[in-house]
Structures are given as C-alpha cells and as structure tokens.
C-alpha cells in the first residue's frame, strides 16, 4: 500500500455520496469538513467485502469535526468534537 494521501491536521471533506450497497459512512457525516486526527493503517474495503475479499484495501483515518459544525443549535462549546473513522476513498482535500 502506498503512503497515506492525507497528513495529520489536514482539512478534509467527507464525500457526500450514497452507494446502493453497504458502506460505513453515516449520513450525518457526509459532506462534512474536519481535520485528520489520526492515520489508522490499511484495512479491507467494507464495500468490497460484500462481494469478495475486500480488495483493494483502503487506508483508514480518524477525522475530527467540531460538533458546532455538525448540528444546528448544538448545546455545547466550540471545542466539543466528533471523531469518526473514514476510509481514504471517502475523503477529499478541503479548501
């Protein structure tokens, strides 16, 4: 597997798409912008496991999103965070 495409602290957008099959990105996270909190190794692609062996594998990241960006009228401060695991093929650089 090649080097990680994204680096720690980089701003990324979680791609907003909805495959008809099993995938691991909850609706609330789609289209959201966060930062790379952790680079988590390479794993079988859950979208490929349903019809085989999970190949090619995907690198996994943890993306940190401020809660105030996720929810309107969030009942907490700007430092409350949501950390979520997202595969590389669901991320793009955010400007």
């Amino acid at each position, binding site marked *: 597997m090649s080097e990680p495409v994204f680096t720690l602290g980089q701003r990324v957008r979680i791609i907003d798409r909805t495959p008809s099959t099993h995938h*691991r*990105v*909850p609706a*609330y*996270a789609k289209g959201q912008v966060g930062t790379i909190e952790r680079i*988590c*190794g390479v*794993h079988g692609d*859950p979208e490929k496991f349903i019809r085989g062996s999970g190949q090619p594998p995907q690198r*996994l990241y*943890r993306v940190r999103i401020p*809660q105030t960006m*996720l*929810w309107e009228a*969030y*009942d*907490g*401060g700007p*430092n*409350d*965070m*949501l*950390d*979520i*695991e*997202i*595969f590389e093929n669901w991320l793009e650089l955010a400007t």
Partner: protein
Amino acid sequence: MTEHDHDHARTFQPDHAEPTSEAAQLGLALRELLLEAGHYSVEEEQTMIAAMQGASPENGAKIVAQAWTNAPYKARLLDNGANAIRELGFDLDPFEFTVMDNSKNIHNVIVCTLCSCYPRSLLGMSPAWYKSSSYRARIVREPRAVLTEFGVSLSDDIDVRVHDSTAELRYMVLPQRPAGTDGWSQDQLAALVTRDSLIGVQRELGTASTVGD
C-alpha cells in the same frame, strides 16, 4: 388435569423456542454451510464461544489499573492499544484497539452509530442501551444531555469528544484515577473501574466500598 398441575405451573419454565423466523433459519443454515465448506471447525467455534464468554469489563479494569500505576505503560497504551494489551495477555485482533484518555478538561464517550461495534471479545457483551437506536442517535447529536441522563454533568471547561466507531477501530475510555488512592494495589484499583466508565457514560469512580474486597 391432575392434582399435580399447580406444582407444575409454579415450576414450569419454557424451553428456548425452536428458531422459526426466516432470519434465524437462515443463520443456522449459513453456519452449517460454513462448517461443511471447512471455513472453520466446530472446535474453533467452541474456542471462540469460550473466549467470548470469558470476556468481561474486568479485563478492561486490569488494563486501566496497569495504566494508572505505570506511566510508560500508559504511554504505550495510548500510542498503540492493540500492542499494549498484548503485553497483558489480551488480544483484539483483527481490530485496532484504541484507548482514549480522560483528563481534567476532556471527557470521551464511545458509540457506534451504524450498528453497535464494541470490543466484545475483550469487555464482553455490550449493554442493551449501547445498542439502542436512541443512544446511538442522541449521543452524537446531544452528548451533554445524554451524559446528564447518565448522571454525568460536565462543566463548560470540560470538552466532550464523541468517538463514532464506524470501521476497524474498537474503543475504550481510560477513566481518571480517583483521588485518595495513592498506594493502592492494582487489584484494588481495578475493582473501582466500571463498565460504564470504559464506555464513557460514567466519569467519576467511587472509592467507598471496594477496599479489601
């Protein structure tokens, strides 16, 4: 009807029902096909069931007590949880075991919004509420309100971090060591650690009733 009916009625317990739903039948059929095709053996299945039954929050408590009393171990645990718990004889393979450290100003809480992912082979079965759609939906959207319902009131200077376990990581919270436990043994410390504190719906651990247990 006989004169024994009343005794029978008092002691009668129904057998586990035979599976009748389509999903249950499908599960049984799938298991038999997997065994027949040699994907795993009955022995391996028994070993796995035994391991699952041996898992409990006490395993997590041992890990926490080690981290509280051994700073280099704590650093290794936070850096690479999977490797660090192997030192204590635990293994969560193939998942990446990830430990989140509570501190004076940070509170961590775990959820799996998509299903109910949980480090089950380490901590045992997850509680029913962890799997409920209400917890899964609300803890990401209004964690402070949900934590209050669990009895955790967080002041404004404590930041909340919600961890949504969507893929290959399995999480455990490292609660803070309670004050007044200097010099306690690891066994005494481990007895303070609760399942809920490992998920993050409890923040303060009691010290009252455990010494000498």
